[in-house]
């Protein structure tokens, strides 16, 4: 059972990582008293936390930011909790990156490289058996995206055998940062090359889930981070089938990567979960596997991020599309289903998830879809399903990003800020080419 080191980069990475670690710790201590579930707790805890003498658990995490406020907030927020961050596993500078990818990548990164590698090595030394990295960052800013891309390269150079799973946050399409599209294209071009898998999380989608499913009227970043943490935890927590065989995972990151990324041209993952509901409506709902599976399948077919507002007219026999002739399916390279809750092992999931029409012909039937089940519930939901897939879901957002960035690039706006720190026109063109390549590969599935 391998340990995972969480690397939280920039304000977004720090904040989401903080929520994620809280959720993981909560789940790992929840079933403390029930004996047969002790394995679950052990594995969940040991993967992400370190036992210390004083009784508190220490997160296996390294926080990196070029300005101190977010990291200080996260460290302070753990007072009173049963877990905390290890002392001096945070690397902060004072001046920030100014939303400038070039500054993060060319100026900060080389200066901080050694210190960062040191911190990461220290964290790895604490692990008995090290599995891989969970690299959390956003694409829009300067630190998370610029320094993050550099850290990705560094991890790959120094720890070639570690698995790197990279959840990244895409900004609101309505605009959060004026240069977000440049930063996103530049980052993606690097991390696609070095990470084993890149999972896109979208602020737009997280916002809608908070607003429409959880009924939160005034959605804050805090709420959205909690939803993102919920989604990530649903695939990172152990899958215990029964007492005899123990955990399905030896190394959660590795298992996910090998199940989903069979070809290095296709690494973009997408995450969907059902159900979501606010705590006070949970008591009034009963769940059935059949209902959940049906909703998840429809979400898979229509590539929708939540189970509300689904287009039920699209079916396997009648795919969506503007005209009869141009109708297509959302295509997948491979997919993983996580079923958590009572009765999961006895329920046979619909075979539709592995239907050949949704996958290219060069994928063997056995590799298309896997289902991992555990009887243990997740976060108070009696039953829930998470769907982690490698497919064309990423095309839409990548397309939008690249189109806008290219438009801006054509008018040469903001470029002087990037060139000032050593980036050149050719770097931009290469980045565009890489991302266009990924879009093309998925489009031609």
């Amino acid at each position, binding site marked *: 059972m391998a340990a995972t080191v969480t690397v939280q980069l920039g304000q977004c990475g720090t904040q989401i990582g903080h929520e994620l670690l809280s959720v993981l710790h909560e789940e790992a201590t929840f079933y403390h008293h029930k004996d047969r579930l002790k394995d679950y707790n052990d594995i969940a805890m040991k993967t992400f936390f370190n036992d210390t003498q004083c009784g508190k658990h220490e997160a296996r995490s390294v926080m990196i930011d070029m300005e*101190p*406020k977010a990291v200080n907030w996260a460290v302070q927020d753990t007072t009173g909790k049963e877990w905390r961050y290890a002392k001096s596993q945070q690397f902060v500078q004072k001046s920030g990156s100014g939303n400038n990818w070039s500054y993060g990548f060319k100026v900060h990164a080389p200066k901080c490289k050694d210190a960062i590698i040191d911190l990461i090595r220290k964290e790895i030394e604490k692990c008995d058996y090290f599995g891989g990295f969970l690299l959390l960052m956003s694409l829009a800013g300067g630190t998370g995206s610029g320094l993050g891309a550099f850290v990705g390269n560094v991890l790959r150079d120094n720890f070639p055998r570690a698995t790197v799973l990279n959840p990244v946050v895409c900004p609101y*399409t309505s605009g*959060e940062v*004026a240069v977000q599209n440049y930063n996103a294209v530049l980052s993606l071009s690097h991390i696609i090359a070095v990470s084993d898998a890149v999972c896109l999380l979208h602020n737009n989608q997280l916002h809608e889930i908070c607003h429409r499913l959880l009924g939160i009227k005034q959605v804050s*970043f*805090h709420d959205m981070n909690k939803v993102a943490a919920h989604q990530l935890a649903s695939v990172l927590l152990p899958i215990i089938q029964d007492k005899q065989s123990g955990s399905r995972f030896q190394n959660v990151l590795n298992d996910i990567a090998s199940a989903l990324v069979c070809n290095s041209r296709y690494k973009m993952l997408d995450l969907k979960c059902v159900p979501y509901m606010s705590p006070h409506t949970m008591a009034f709902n009963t769940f059935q596997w059949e209902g959940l599976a049906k909703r998840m399948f429809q979400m898979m077919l229509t590539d929708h991020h939540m189970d509300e507002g689904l287009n039920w007219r699209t079916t396997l026999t009648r795919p969506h599309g503007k005209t009869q002739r141009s109708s297509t399916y959302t295509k997948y390279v491979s997919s993983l289903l996580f079923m958590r809750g009572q009765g999961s092992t006895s329920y046979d999931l619909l075979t539709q998830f592995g239907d050949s029409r949704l996958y290219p012909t060069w994928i063997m039937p056995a590799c298309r879809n896997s289902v991992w089940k555990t009887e243990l519930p997740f976060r108070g939901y009696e039953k829930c399903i998470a769907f982690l897939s490698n497919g064309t879901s990423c095309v839409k957002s990548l397309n939008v990003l690249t189109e806008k960035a290219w*438009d801006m690039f054509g008018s040469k*706006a903001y470029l002087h*800020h990037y060139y000032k720190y050593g980036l050149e026109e050719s770097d931009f063109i290469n980045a565009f080419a890489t991302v266009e390549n990924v879009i093309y590969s998925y489009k031609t599935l």
Partner: protein
Amino acid sequence: MTQSIMIQVGQCGNQIGCRFWDQCLHEHAFYSKNGIYDDAISSFFRNTETYSDETYDLPMRTGSNKINKLKARAILVDMEEGVINELLQGQLGEIFDSKQLITNSFGSGNNWAVGNKEYGTMYREQIAEQVRKAAELCDCLQCFFVLHSTGGGTGSGLGTSLLSILQDEFPEVYRFVGAVYPSSDDDVITSPYNSMLATYELTEKADCVLPINNQALINICNKVQQAVRSGKFEKPTEKNAKPFDAMNNLVANVILNMTSSSRFEGSLNVDLNEIVMNLVPFPKQHYLVSSLSPLYISKDVALPPRKLDQAFEDLFSKDHQLMLSDPRHSLYLACALMVRGKNVQTSDLNRNIAKLSRNLSFVNWNQEGWKTGLCNLPPIGQQYSLLALANNTCIRHTFTDLKDRFVKLYSRKAHVHHYEKVDGFESLLFDESLNSLTGIIKEYEEMEKTTLSGTAQSTDRLQLV
């Protein structure tokens, strides 16, 4: 946490600066009840101890030391002694170190050439040394704020010559300039010359300029005053007396709000370097029109609170701009929205951005050119506060006005001899400044034309071979 240094030049600059320090102290006093000298305070103040007449800086170390004696990170420059003396004798006198003052008694006679060339050379070394000293006392200096007016002699001339000192000594540190432009009824005859020459320097040497117009400030103050039944500041005795204190407070509030996110916590922090990055698409087009909503002059003098969505709408109306302009009917190149307040969340921001985007035109390659920031702590006495910094083509109208007034004088070569007789000044400078301003006006015009007429073409995406 980063530090900023405020450099106030000339009468106008120093008076605005005075209001700024006053408000700043109040704000920090309000939010730091334990009297601890922390990161937030250190962005504008030093903690000092005085032993036998020498002041020593107390380092922040772990950030849990109590405040001993605060000194502002400021440099005060004026070629007349009146204003600075008044400042020192007032309540704020204690926060300024006597070494931070650079004064003379002769004044600049409203002559940019005297301010820039004569005093610029005379005081260059002294100013450079003060700046160096102030910078050494900073852990991580991020930006310089220069406050001045462009219509006079000292603020305009010496203020801009200062910019070249800053550029030479600290090229990496951002130079933000709060420049007060003269209104059309300005009583200084040579103000168009001074403003034109100053604008040339600002275009070349500043990273970001916030132009402000006295008339706009007066309008805002009147609006607030009418709404407030019992005015706590002195009512103007003559009909045309300008409520300068109130006007300067407004400018001070803009700077406080702009730096709030780098001083205090929030869920979406915006540092000053991010403002430059996101709002300046081309190096010379760095003039940002600012606006505040809701309007407030100090914690006791403000408009009654409005609903949040209404405040967002107001922010883009021309009554709330600190510059006489109407950005709504011009083209936006980019816009920053900085929000302070505990109860404003990202969903409120998004909802309002979506609403506003429908009615505002953005340049075609930056349709979503918004930069948003959320800071938890509101200004004192307010529930929340919104600040918009817009890079908008409406500034070309102001510049065109300025150009017209300049040309009116220059075509007769009126008063030009006052400038030419100053050592180091060449009359070519007049022509160069005129060309530079004409160039900028033209660039803004071009952008407006291409986008608003819909003739913008998007280049084809990269095709893979």
